[in-house]
């Protein structure tokens, strides 16, 4: 059933402390809304549990990007357009830049925020595997203060996170140490723009003398949460990429993912494509090493 606007409250306090005070006074009562690309869809369908919303759109404290020598700190309210336009993101974090380019069309990129994407916690979100392989750290903020949580620990179950009822994500921190890695991002979906992924991969790797020194793999739409593949990574490290290793990697991926059947695809297809995407990444990593 369609929502009636008269039944909903929306406040726009306009500053981070004012929003946090509201959340602290009635924990869990207020639903933060940033660019609205997820919340307004649920609202229009009459599926929002909360009837009290608080706008965090364009709060200056959430929209900053700070780059220091070692770290880029991305405000949670930065949009995909902000990410695409930032030279450090496009230069050093191409997996995040690719995901920003794939997420929705231009209008949704202008409004959708990285923090909103994380909190919405869809296992199909394109940007979340990138945050896993870059080993992002989240800064959470509430009226009680700030705390830091490794992003890898943030999603605890399907659409369940460690965010407390009175907290917001303030920023996402990425260490600037991946620019030498070969970065490979791939989305398989019905079409590039708008369509939600059937499977997506974010991968980083580096080789020395043909041997895999480090490899990082994370996938979307293959488990209840965005999934890093540590067992497959361990199996690959220290090895030379040949056909036998690629076959073993496909088997390791199939054993590590936990896909489901849904409206966009089947578990069987997803497991097969997940293995193929990792194989494609390894082939390209090898070609790149041979080309050097």
């Amino acid at each position, binding site marked *: 059933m369609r929502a009636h606007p008269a039944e909903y409250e929306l406040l*726009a306090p306009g500053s981070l402390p004012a929003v946090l005070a509201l959340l602290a006074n009635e924990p869990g009562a207020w639903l933060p*809304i940033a660019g609205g690309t997820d919340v307004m869809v649920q609202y229009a369908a009459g599926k929002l549990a909360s009837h009290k919303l608080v706008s965090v759109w364009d709060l200056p404290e959430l929209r900053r990007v700070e780059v220091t020598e070692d770290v880029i700190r991305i405000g949670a309210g930065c949009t995909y357009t902000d990410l695409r336009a930032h030279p450090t993101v496009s230069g050093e974090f191409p997996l995040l830049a690719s995901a920003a380019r794939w997420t929705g069309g231009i209008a949704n990129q202008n409004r959708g925020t990285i923090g909103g994407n994380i909190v919405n916690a869809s296992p199909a979100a394109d940007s979340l595997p990138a945050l896993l392989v870059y080993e992002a750290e989240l800064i959470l903020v509430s009226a009680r203060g700030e705390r830091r949580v490794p992003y890898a620990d943030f999603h605890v179950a399907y659409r369940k996170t460690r965010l407390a009822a009175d907290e917001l994500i303030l920023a996402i921190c990425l260490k600037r140490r991946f620019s030498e890695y070969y970065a490979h991002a791939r989305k398989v979906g019905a079409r590039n723009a708008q369509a939600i992924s059937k499977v997506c991969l974010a991968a980083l790797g580096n080789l020395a003398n043909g041997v895999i020194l480090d490899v990082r793999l994370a996938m979307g739409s293959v488990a209840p949460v965005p999934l890093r593949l540590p067992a497959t990574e361990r199996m690959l490290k220290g090895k030379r990429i040949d056909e036998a290793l690629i076959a073993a990697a496909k088997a390791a991926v199939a054993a590590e993912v936990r896909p489901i059947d849904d409206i966009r695809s089947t578990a069987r297809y997803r497991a097969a494509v997940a293995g193929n995407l990792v194989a494609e990444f390894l082939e390209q990593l090898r070609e790149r090493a041979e080309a050097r």
Partner: protein
Amino acid sequence: MKAQTAPRAKLEIALKVNGRSMTVCAHPMERLLDVLRHELGLTGTKEGCGEGECGSCSVLLDGTLVNSCLIPVLQAAGGEVTTIEGLAADGQLHALQQAFLECGGAQCGICTPGMILAACQLLRKKPRPNTKEIQEGLSGNLCRCTGYAQILEAVADAARRGVE
């Protein structure tokens, strides 16, 4: 935006639409799309899917392309909205409107206002886009008549003529 405390009442919300300052009386969660169409009679902005997939409700908010079905009107308070009705000036069609007309870029017309506003944002950022850039700029806008070839041609044509 000022703090508002009265729950579930209509508010006076000031914004600028197509260059005119105005105040609308609306519930804060009313969609900008509905305020434009029902309060202001600007029915050039269409509703397609109502969930940000089709782009037919595209408008510019502070010069940025947005889906107006996903904007609670309170988030547009103090902002400047441009709809398809705001593009023509002094009785002259905007170059994009003229190009869509001449290239057959409109069939049933439902997607056309959104296509033109998406193209408008694209040409402001990239005055001479290549085909791939045009396709990307319009990738959030769907045409159920599938007249994409003429739409892309219309945008390329407007770019060749120059859009200020």
